[in-house]
């Protein structure tokens, strides 16, 4: 069995915790999150008939007051950068984070997730921006932790990217 560490990253309240909760359907270490700044969940997936254990590190939100502790990011095999479609600033945060990650850890698989797809009418980010990002080689998903749209796909795709 292969294990992979994945970090959930993104601005405050974009839906990182909601996505993980939706995906693993467990509440194992909710209580640790606030004190330690990280919540860890795990999920077993199959990639090419091979078991892969995903260890999902859900970090406390990134904003100007609360910097992500980089030590948590070390040893990650991939990242999920979550953006709240209804807030344009969250995309800036995500792209900035991505840039910093690449500087610190080199090229690692990551996915850009535009969350809250169920609120598409309220989106500030226009489809053109997303298509542009996609066109420049980024893996991009529109998801909703509320409806479950694309949630499985996000994690499975990252798992495949990491294993190959």
């Amino acid at each position: 069995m292969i294990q992979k560490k994945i970090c959930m990253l993104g601005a405050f309240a974009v839906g990182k915790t909601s996505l993980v909760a939706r995906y693993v359907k467990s509440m194992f270490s909710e209580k640790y999150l606030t004190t330690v700044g990280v919540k860890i969940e795990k999920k077993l997936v199959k990639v090419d008939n091979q078991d892969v254990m995903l260890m999902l590190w859900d970090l406390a939100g990134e904003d100007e007051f609360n910097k992500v502790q980089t030590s948590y990011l070390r040893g990650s095999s991939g990242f999920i950068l979550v953006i709240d479609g209804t807030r344009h600033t969250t995309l800036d945060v995500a792209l900035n984070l991505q840039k910093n990650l690449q500087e610190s850890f080199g090229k690692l698989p990551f996915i850009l997730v535009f969350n809250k797809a169920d609120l598409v009418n309220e989106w500030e980010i226009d489809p053109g921006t997303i298509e542009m990002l996609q066109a420049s080689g980024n893996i991009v998903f529109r998801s909703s932790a509320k409806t479950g749209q694309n949630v499985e796909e996000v994690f499975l795709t990252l798992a495949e990217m990491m294993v190959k």
Partner: protein
Amino acid sequence: MSAKRDLETKESKQIEQDVNSQDEFTQLRSLLLGSEQAQIAKISDRLDNHKTRAEEISHVLADAINQSSKRDQQLTESLLPTVEEAIRISVKKDARILVDALFPVIGPAIRKAISQALSGMLQSLNQTLDQSFSWKGLLWRIEAFRTGKSFAEVVLLKTLLYRVEQLFLIHRESGLLLQHVVADLVVAQDADMVSAMFTAIQDFVKDSFGVKEGETLQTLQIGELNVWVEQGPKATLAAVIRGDAPADLRNFFQDAIEMIHFHYQDALEGFSGDASVFEPSRKTLEDCLQAQYEKQTQGKFSPAFWIFVSSISFLILGWSFFYLRDTYRWKSYLDKLRTTNGIVITETGKIDGKYYVSGLRDPLAPDPDQILKLSKLNSEAVVSHWEAYNSLHPEFIIARTKQILAVPSGVDLRFENGTLHLTGRARHSWIKEARKLFRAIPVHLQESKLIDIDLEKLNSLKSNIEQESIFFSTGQSKPLLSESEKIEKLLANIKVLAKEATLNDINIELEVLGHSSSIGTDLLNSRLSQERAETVVAIFVRRGLEPKLFSVHAMAAKESDEQNLVEHNINQRVSFRVVLADI
């Protein structure tokens, strides 16, 4: 071949021809190859000139070393002796330079080593002190005293009461679990989650408290559980320990993590999530579990064992108490027997778990069973055998004499110098009977001081009677009238005497002696004295006394024991003599 030869000859011919045109040729050459010539000159100058070459190499040296180091170790190896020598010379020349350079490194390294050693020592010391004044500590002190070990040694042995329950081998960077071993009977949580959370906590501590790189959380304590962390460069070993483990257990874990780094250097370096390569490390980790188990079982006894030990001690204590108590009682019983007169112990011991005593006992001695009862010994546990004998102890001679003779209350017995003295007063009948039994007494008897009450009385009466005389007128055989009172008194005394004598089985004879004066013929006087005695006897008989009591004796004047009466011619009288027979 021939063509080549032609060409050579042609050339040589031409050189000969050209000797004259040397200058022209030089001119031409400089025109054609001038710049190349200058370059060649410059190159040869670069090669020949030391200074220039050094300057040039200085530009590429760093890059060259860099490349060589990347390629292989050759450069490092070839440089090694030179560098070593350089350091040696440097130290020799001026050690301060190197000391100053190393100071920032050596200081913390030494401090770290010392503080680690001290903290281990303090932990042991604390455990020792902690246990010094507790109840457990007291038991350990007893054990130390009993086994001859030092107290600290015993404490150390006892503090190995811990169990290494789980070991996590964790990839340091990712927090992914590389290996996990669990002791028997321990219920383990989701190991990979624990591993990740543990790493997160480590990171949290590191980030939150601004710990320096390379320094990490070493111990976590949650109630009875301790998590000991051994950090390697690539992997972390976290040991979950229940109870108090001695500090030197850390060495054990350090060895393990070092060994793992040594064996799995490449796997750790290139770890990408596949932990299966670390499977063989399970053995190393399990050894950590097992080694501690052995120590634990050495030091710890189960509660059942303690219950067993304390019951046994209790039994032994109880048994000792009863044993000692009974032994004491047995000894006192024997002592009591030994000091009791009339009892002689010939043999003591134990037979079939029972006390045994045999000996001689005077039937008059106190009953040993009674003494046994007073000793509070269980009479069931004592077997006795007594042979009867007669003790010659004065006490028993006296007792036995009293028994045989039925000594009455007025009589005292005293044993002195081998003779038993009888003193006091006794009835005549008893004395008479006792004398017959004297032979049965095994010692010499002395009874001369024993007073015969009855005989004393008889003798008193006898002397009273014998003192008296009944007087007559001259020539008369009838007592004087004035004598009648005396006669009454005599009569009474004789009656008592007769009665007492009969009671005591003594025969009495009352000799009635008739006397006369010496005037007149002997025949007459003899007849007169006869008549006088007979007259008195007749009076007595008439007054109720038995005739056979009396015997009449005519004493006349001659045989009078009162010669002065005869001389004064007042011997006309009757006197009495009492004879006690069969005393």
